[in-house]
């Protein structure tokens, strides 16, 4: 599972880097755009989850849709 190891290493590096201090280059007062509803991709969880359900039902691919996954996947 070489691919998994690459991902695990990247996450470990990111976590270790978190121990050092990084100056935020986008200041808190510059972030008002991210509070705007148009910038929230997951604004209505119940509706997004349903559409993901449709995708998983009709397609062979699965995962990385932002949810918790799991379930049956029969058919």
């Amino acid at each position: 599972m070489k691919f998994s190891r690459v991902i695990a290493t990247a996450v470990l590096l990111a976590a270790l880097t978190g121990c050092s201090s990084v100056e935020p280059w986008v200041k808190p007062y510059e972030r008002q755009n991210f509070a705007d509803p148009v910038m929230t991709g997951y604004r209505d969880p119940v509706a997004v989850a349903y559409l993901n359900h449709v995708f998983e039902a009709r397609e062979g691919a699965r995962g990385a849709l932002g949810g918790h996954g799991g379930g049956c996947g029969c058919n």
Partner: protein
Amino acid sequence: MRLKVLMLVASVAAFAPAAHAAVLPDDRADVLYHRYDGGGVTIDGPSLLVRKKFAEKYSVTANYYVDMVSSASIDVVTTASPYTEERTQVSLGADVLNGRTQYTVAFSNSDETDYTANTAAFDVSQDLFGDLTTLSFGYSRGWDEVRKRDDAEFSEPVDRSTWRIGLSQILTPKLMVGMNWELVSDEGFLNNPYRSVRYLDPGSVLGYAYQPEVYPNTRVSNALAVSARYFLPYRAALAGNYRWFTDTWGIDASTVTLGYTHPWGERWIFELTYRWYTQGAADFYSDLFPNANAQNFLARDKELSTFTSNMVGLGATYELPFAMPFIKRSSVSFFFDRFQFDYDDFRDVRAGGTPGTEPLYGFGANVFRLFVSGWF
């Protein structure tokens, strides 16, 4: 189970940690009606979601979801009889916020006549670098039981494990990017006990016959998605997402999603979405095998074939201009999505003719979501 019950994302996904961990989700309730209509299949029902915070540190979530299925799909009309059934799913979740770290646990149960699925999930989300970065990881475990309607003795297990990692990053005051990776591992009875594969049979009137499909009892898949969302100069947003997928069954897939969100006045938000999906077939898939028991694994599930789908979606949300008792604000939303599926190696046997020369199958589907949301 005759319905592709699919993943439990319909409800557990609703419990996914927010893009930024240091804030718990708002108190809200949603009542949704969903309807899927296409390829001879109609599925509709309600979904109810409630979220409630306590002391700005704890949050609980509950979801009740129903699929009412009426199916006369091409699989069903060619090898079985049309049917109706109902699937009910109940999910519960809880979040704990500790500084810049959010912990989420969730459990979901899905039940129908011939399939039961249980999933438990645990996720951690951490804000880093002055809250510009959110790193998350999680694990789910699923325990399913596959049954068969006309065989009371039939009961087979499926065990499922899912690992996932997510990264969300604010790059500029207008640009946010993200990455999600998910590995899913299944073990058990992974095929549909009702579905058959087709093979050439010169002795048959049609020139072909059917036998039950046979799948491997393990599957491991990897999916990696990258995404970006950009705030335009005139208060609107552009979004893009690419997902790459591969699995041990030989399926490779790509998904591209583009979205545009545009507000109008203080109360309206409109959304336009285009999604393109393509996949290659599983190694053991064939529309028509050369003979019976042609190989050790056999599949003729069109979801394992080579195909492309296109989806165009339109949505509108209207924030209601009045307050109600115990509700600070509320909105009504309607989304319509049009799908077109075109298969490259799955044939429509209803047309008849020489086996293997029937026209390729394709169908369109309409998906509706109508919901009311209230924040309290």
